[in-house]
């Protein structure tokens, strides 16, 4: 898989959780070198800015993932 596609996966807010409930790093993140990880960071910033504008409630996928975990944990 190319760096571009690895970066796109890292931009996603989806993360698996470990058995103890901790959020796990994306497998694609581990396959990137330092420059690729920094590009993924910049792309995620852009993506979240776009998401906040496109979501009616202004909630990005990151915040939505956290909210889902909070409400499921109740």
């Amino acid at each position, binding site marked *: 898989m190319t760096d571009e596609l690895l970066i796109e996966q890292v931009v996603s*807010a989806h993360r698996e959780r470990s058995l103890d409930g901790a959020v796990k790093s994306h497998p694609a993140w581990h396959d990137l070198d330092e420059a690729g990880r920094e590009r993924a960071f910049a792309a995620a910033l852009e993506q979240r800015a776009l998401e906040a504008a496109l979501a009616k409630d202004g909630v990005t996928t*990151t*915040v939505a993932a956290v909210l889902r975990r909070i409400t499921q944990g109740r």
Partner: protein
Amino acid sequence: MSEALTDERTELAAIARGDVDAFARWASAVERSLRLSLQRFAASVDVEVVVQETLLRVWQVAPRFVHDGRPRALLRFATTAAHHVALGELRRLGTTGALVALEDAPEPAVDPRPPDPHLRQAIVGCHEKLPDKPKAALAARLHSRGAEDDAALGQTLGMSLNTFLQNVTRARAALKACLEKLGIDVSAEALP
């Protein structure tokens, strides 16, 4: 006490009472600031993990959080918490070289920015113009709200993982190009 500080205390009290909507508003307002505070960790830890874990910790600590009387108390607390979560991730990954370099680094102060209605309008307008497949792939990501991985999202659209990822990338590139024609640089909007 200033009006902004009164509003902040009111919002914080709501979060402490377990008001998820209040927490969603606060988290949406500070997410960019929090993420930017982690920029120096970007090569060493998966920043998405740190942001999500930090927001969860803030939610858990909020009922016991004591406001120090200065503006943006919860954001300052969250920034410090994010720093500790990132250092914990570094230790877990065994990245000791980076740890030495990052442990004492000062935490940057990044103020939250209110949403810009004109920017939002421009982004929505450009989104309308996206070609079908990139638009569908981006929509799948947005509607999933981080619940499903990209392979599963691609499957719902009849796309392989690679095709799905290519379409999301194309969607973002096309949005950026459309916004640039309107004189808006998304990269600049996302950064301080």
